[in-house]
């Protein structure tokens, strides 16, 4: 590698660091992303221009095909489908890392060094896990398969078995440098990726995407070790480290210990916590609720996953505008994890032309709630469960919530009495201050809209 190429790689690596730095502040986020893209372009041009590269035209052709596939896919995807697209792009990255390591191993000839073999084994295993794991998260989010946790009868034993086999294969590859065993290891990684993600419940999938993202980063870093390329090591490690931290931050925002998410403890204890109890709830009529809303002074809307699923954001915006024309003060309370991913709800409501200044965060909304007439909870549950604040035994204890139980009245628009993703009963549903309206969020809001117009 020539000196100028190494220098170009250094500049590219700096671009990546600054890109991540930019992406973590709202003001420089977009510039950060563009800087990252510029760094990437520089790195690719450098590798193409430096030294003797065989098969040049074929490589350029394949890159062109990749661009033709990737750009339109990223352009046409709907905003609501963003998370699964990220999962898919992450998966192909993992697969690429594994392929690079396999190919280099095939070409390395007999006596390779132990660190080289170790790095190869690691890259192939993690890359394969990340690939199939991401494909399963994609299938879950795209609803090609159930979003509920899939628990195989002998899932634990099967995963442990394959895991042990993968470790044994890794040791065997280290000892023998056998190509065949390396392929077997890749296969074990592919199966392991599927088994790893299947038991994860719908609401936790974003956290798993973030974790797999960190995995791919690590695989890229170790592939850099395989190839002796510092840029791959730096960029891969950056992603691996920042991805790990981001995964922890996301898990914290949802108030879930990471280990529970990964090992499906929640899903195992969930059904027990939902012991069927016959308790009365107060279901209201559309007209009752329309009157509550229409004659209120202040209303706080708390949108959740149910709103995103029902695509009710436009209907909600219309209803809020109608209420405002009647002189009601309306704000939206956006929980950090509302929607499918942190920040997802902000994007969805921005798309429905909800003015930015109406979107309030937890610490702005909570002090206002005791003087709020109606808290309207649209398709949310766990983020308004007082148990997270008051009951140390609750599995979601510690998760920040909206204190809607302190508002004068609470209206839930819910599909059914089924608990939220955490599988925890919400005491607030049984409160005398609570009124429920069952049905699809969009239908319910549309009916409320018509009823408020009649007032």
């Amino acid at each position, binding site marked *: 590698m020539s000196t100028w190429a190494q220098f170009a790689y250094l500049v*590219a690596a700096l671009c990546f660091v600054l*890109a991540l730095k930019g*992406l*973590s*502040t*709202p003001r420089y986020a*977009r510039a950060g*992303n*563009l800087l990252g*893209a510029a760094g*990437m372009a520089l*790195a690719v041009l*450098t*590798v193409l221009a430096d030294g003797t590269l065989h*098969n040049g035209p*074929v*490589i350029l052709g394949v*890159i062109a*095909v*990749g661009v033709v596939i*990737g750009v339109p896919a*990223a*352009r046409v995807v709907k*905003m609501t489908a*963003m998370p699964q*697209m990220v999962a*898919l*792009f992450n998966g192909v990255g993992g*697969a*690429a*890392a594994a392929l*690079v390591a396999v*190919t280099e191993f*095939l*070409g390395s000839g007999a006596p390779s*060094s132990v660190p*080289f073999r170790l790095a190869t084994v690691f890259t192939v295993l993690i890359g394969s896990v990340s690939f199939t794991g991401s494909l399963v998260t994609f299938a879950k989010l795209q609803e090609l398969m159930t979003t509920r946790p899939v628990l195989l009868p002998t899932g634990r034993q099967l995963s442990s078995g394959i895991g042990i086999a993968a470790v044994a294969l890794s040791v065997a590859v280290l000892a023998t440098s056998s190509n065949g065993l390396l392929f077997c290891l890749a296969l074990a990684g592919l199966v392991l990726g599927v088994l790893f993600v299947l038991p994860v419940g719908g609401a936790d999938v974003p956290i798993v995407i973030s974790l797999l*993202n960190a995995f*791919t*980063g690590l695989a*890229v870093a170790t592939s*850099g070790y395989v190839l*002796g*390329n*510092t840029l*791959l090591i730096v*960029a*891969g490690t*950056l*992603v691996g*480290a*920042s991805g790990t*931290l981001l995964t922890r*931050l996301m898990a914290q*925002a949802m108030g879930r210990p990471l280990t529970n998410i990964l090992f499906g403890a929640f899903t195992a204890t969930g059904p027990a916590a939902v012991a069927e109890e016959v308790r009365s709830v107060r279901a209201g009529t559309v007209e009752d609720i329309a009157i509550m809303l229409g004659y209120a002074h202040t209303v706080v809307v708390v949108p959740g996953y149910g709103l995103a699923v029902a695509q009710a954001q436009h209907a909600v915006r219309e209803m809020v505008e109608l209420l405002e024309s009647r002189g009601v003060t309306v704000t939206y309370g956006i929980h*950090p994890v509302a929607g499918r*991913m*942190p920040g997802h709800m902000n994007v969805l409501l921005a798309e429905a032309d909800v*003015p*930015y200044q109406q979107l309030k965060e937890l610490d702005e909304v909570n002090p206002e709630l005791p003087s709020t007439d109606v808290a309207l909870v649209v398709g949310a549950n766990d983020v308004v469960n007082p148990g997270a604040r008051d009951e140390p035994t609750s599995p979601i204890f510690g998760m920040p919530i909206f204190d809607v139980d302190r508002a004068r009245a609470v209206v839930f628009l819910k599909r059914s009495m089924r608990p939220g993703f955490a599988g925890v009963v919400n005491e607030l549903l049984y409160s005398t201050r609570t009124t429920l309206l069952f049905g699809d969020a969009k239908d319910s809001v549309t009916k409320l809209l018509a009823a408020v117009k009649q007032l």
Partner: protein
Amino acid sequence: MTSSGVDLLTIFVLAAFVGFEVVSKVSTILHTPLMSGANAIHGVILVGAILIAGRADSGLQLGLALAAVLLATVNVVGGFVVTDRMLEMFRSAARGKGGDR
């Protein structure tokens, strides 16, 4: 390999600290774009894929390497474009805020 194993390990450890440090103060609403941007950055495996495709000597190796080039390219361009679209949404929201006043 041009650098010694220990040199590469040093780079790895230092980069890990930088990675932790740069994102430590990220605000919640940027979690998704940040993840997506990081996702695009690990597409740098494209550089590795091009390297091995450029020195492949058997058909099998070339095939595997080109598959890696294709997948890595999709990762890179898709990742950056998706991230940009997400952030565009934030910007238009922020601009709407200014416009209303």
